[in-house]
């Protein structure tokens, strides 16, 4: 059962780490200014 416990703990940790990184990327992306062409549209 110890292996299952490890999978649960590591699994949730990796998911939060990966999605946390994605959160950082998204935060940067969402602050990007609009492209000139987008503004015109």
């Amino acid at each position, binding site marked *: 059962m110890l*292996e*299952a416990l490890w*999978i649960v703990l590591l*699994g949730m940790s990796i998911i939060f780490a*990966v*999605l946390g990184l994605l959160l950082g990327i998204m935060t940067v992306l969402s602050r990007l200014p609009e492209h000139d062409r987008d503004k015109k549209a």
Partner: protein
Amino acid sequence: MEITAGDILGFLSLTWQQAIMLVIGCLLIYLGIARKVEPVLLIPIGTGIILANIPLGDIAGQGGLFALLKEAGIDTELFPLLIFIGVGAMIDFGPFLEKPYTILLGAAAQFGIFGTFFLAYLLGDGWLGIMDFSLNDAASIGMIGSADGPTSIYVSTILGSKFTAAIVVAAYSYMALVPIIQPPIMKWLTTEKERKIRMPVTPGKISRRTRILFPIAAIIAVCLLAPKATPLIGFLMFGNLLRESGVVKQLSSAAQNEMANIVTILLGITVGGMMVAGDFLKLETILIFTIGIIAFAMDTAAGVILGKIMCFISKGKINPLIGAAGISAFPMSARVVQKVGLEADPHNHLLMYAAGANTAGQIASVVAGGVMLMLVPLFG
């Protein structure tokens, strides 16, 4: 050579197990047509079950059409991955990009996968030994908690689970039952005051550049950290890139419509064809369906609990109900959150926030599938 009537007439060879499967097939078709429960899937699955359990039909046996489809589309993981291109092309990540923090709710709601995996392994080879669940089977059963049919098929096929058909049907069935499963848990875990928290509707504008960069950034970031998720996240984001690029509308349309529809037909009927009486009617199947509902309950509870933590940290600005939308069942779960929010306060519109958490759940479930594929062989 002596030929008896039983060798020619199917009904003379019909076993009681096959008769039960025929009833189950008819029931799924009935639910799809009369009750409109996931008709796109239940009608092909129900038909597949009926065809696979016709005695002497041999459609699911060695060399039969269903065996061929399974080999070509499921064993190679082709069908679920093609579906993901269509899903990616259909999803608007806008609400999610406007509220990036909702990705954490999507992450928390994947606890159902791991909690269910632990429970299944506990009942199986892990400790109690009541059921014939190996570590790989338990991980595949846990994927019911992804609330995501293609991911469940993909992971259980790669892990070689003998319960793939039951897992897929359980995942799709409970996705349809989200409006029944989630509300009691959401209400039980939140106070009336929390459910009444209003979140301002502020229509933001996400630039086209951001929308295009997001799928590319997601592929690179996620795949470098969790490479086993590459096929899943890659195809999902490829579909989204077709949509957001705006220059290949015909490809985006084909992915959303023609391709997704054709593959859904093939996937549904093939999954139904895998449900042959001898393999399906087992005690383990009933238990998988029971565990499946626990998976959805754990998903919902974990999302709401993180929502409550975020509510506390934000000093009451975040309504914890939106955490329940962190599961991948899109868009049912977001609608459930909106409905429960409106029950507490008829002017409380949570849909935009819930849609953000819901699309985050789609990404998170794919990542969870990749993480499961990465970890199980390490400990198996």
